[in-house]
């Protein structure tokens, strides 16, 4: 017997492509613009959201029958806030530099639309195992886009990847810089992140015509 049933597999794989939270549902754009100037920050952000969403979905799913519907948003917020504080403290303890780069955006995971969206749309109506898979799938779809954006922005904007100077040294003029190449400063500004998101959406929709909305 397979580890995951077909239905469960689609919970994980759908959000990676045809139901991607960023490119299809256009949620979680703010953090995608704010912290993707470096690949490392993107990866850490993706992992943090994965932890918060995976755990949060499970917790909400377990409590789904005892949460009074009138105050469910508050309960959800408490759960997210607790998880985010855990992530924040861990980052501060073990990756202080990175936590400074991410600054308020770790705290702002609370307001990430994807998280509340999945709680409301999925965890409140499904069991813990499926909710967990859904959380992992959606945060993986989110993280995938973040990492793609982070890859291009760091490579073209700073000429590095995860801090390694893959294109040569811009000051000593080695590698590509020896023939006159220069880093694209625009890539480091948030507007360019939005344009990169737009380009990803463009590529995705021209490959899969079913995604194009009717006007």
């Amino acid at each position, binding site marked *: 017997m397979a580890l995951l049933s077909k239905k469960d597999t689609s919970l994980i794989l759908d959000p990676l492509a045809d139901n991607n939270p960023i490119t299809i549902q256009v949620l979680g754009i703010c953090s995608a613009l704010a912290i993707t100037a470096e690949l490392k920050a993107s990866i850490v952000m993706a992992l943090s959201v994965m932890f918060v969403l995976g755990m949060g979905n499970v917790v909400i799913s377990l409590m789904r029958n005892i949460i009074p519907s009138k105050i469910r948003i508050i309960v959800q917020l408490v759960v997210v806030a607790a998880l985010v504080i855990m992530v924040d403290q861990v980052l501060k303890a073990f990756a202080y530099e990175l936590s400074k780069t991410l600054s308020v955006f770790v705290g702002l995971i609370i307001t990430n639309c994807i998280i509340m969206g999945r709680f409301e749309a999925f965890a409140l109506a499904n069991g813990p195992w499926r909710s967990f898979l859904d959380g992992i799938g959606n945060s993986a779809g989110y993280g995938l886009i973040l990492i793609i954006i982070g890859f291009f922005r760091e490579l073209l904007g700073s000429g590095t990847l995860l801090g390694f100077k893959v294109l040569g040294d811009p000051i000593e003029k080695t590698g590509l810089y020896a023939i*006159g190449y*220069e880093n*694209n*400063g*625009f*890539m480091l*500004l948030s507007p360019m992140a939005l*344009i990169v998101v*737009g380009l990803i959406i463009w590529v995705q929709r021209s490959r899969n015509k079913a995604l194009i909305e009717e006007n």
Partner: protein
Amino acid sequence: MSLKNNLHNLKEKYKGKKMAPAFNAIHTFLYAPNETTHSGSHVRAVDDLKRTMNTVIMALVPVLIFGIFNAGYQHYAAVDAANGVVRQASLFGNFLTWENFIMGAWTVLPLVIVSYAVGLAVEFLFAVIKGHEVEEGYLVTGMLVPLIVPVDTPLWMLAVAVVFGVVIGKEVFGGTGMNILNPALTIRAFLFFAYPTWMSGDKVWVHQAVDLAGGPDAISGETILGYLAQGKGAEMSYSVADMFFGFIPGSVGETSTILILLGGLFLIYSKIASWRIMLSAVIGALVMGLIFNGVVDAGWITETSKFYGLMSFAFWQHLIVGGLAFGIVYMATDPVTGAQTNKGKWYYGFFIGFISVLIRVFNPAYPEGVFLAILLMNVFAPTIDHYVVRGNINKRLKRAKNATILPRDGEGKAQELKAETV
């Protein structure tokens, strides 16, 4: 058989083929189409989009030629200055020389060629993919782009920026006529934000100054706005006449105010560009300049303020330095991205002039803001038009409500609805 007939026969032959749009583009560039609309209420004139574009290009040619001479002149002037020789610009004495022309052509023409080759390649590519005719939109953009960049802009940067500007600035919106932002300015803005070191400072405006920097033959050429922004206006050796005729460092085509003025008059005469936008932009720039002059006269800022140099600059001289004149005449008047209503054009132009001088004075990194002001107003143009149209509708509604309907004084239909408007 003339060339025109040959081209026409070829067009018939290749109709419906994949490359037909590319071929038709060349055909209609050379000749007016040999068929016109047959029925319906269409204007059956030959001055289609392509003629319009060509008229603008004709207005740009003098500026381009001047830019070529000026690129050479500034180079040799800077070399002289580095050797301690002070040059006095004279049109026939040391400006219109072969030496200047060859040096200038060697630096400026590659910019023109790269701009056109890359831009048209993108246009042709999109036309073939989408299966529609090649749009003429790039004809003017391709000529504007080399005129609004510094002479020594590396060609690959220009190519990257052109691809970005044409794809993101125009094609994603649906091509020529659908764009929100002026593509040439999108390209300029991309270059400015992506490669700021190549777009500002005292080295980029003179050919070879970057290459020679730090060496024994180092040369430089600061723009007038650059001098003023650093509070070194007194060291500047350019006269007002130099500024007006254009013997000053700057982007390739922006320096000669008199040729831009002539080009602008030509565009107004041929009814291609809107005189309302040009006039109101000039007024806007003058008003902002007067406000700053007033601030200085009132003694609200001291001479030590970093804004003093630009704020105390005579208000009318803002018009003859930097890219303001070029932007107003050739870029703000773009009929696609500008305001469409006559009243809207006044607001649109006014704020372009006003904001240009505002950014010019307060921008800490780069003492120029025409392209940013025009892009900003491009975004607001539809809003301006919306309110102008709403205002007109409201005015007429009010008039209709207050109208006194006179009693019928006859049997005929004509008398029935005789209204007196107030």
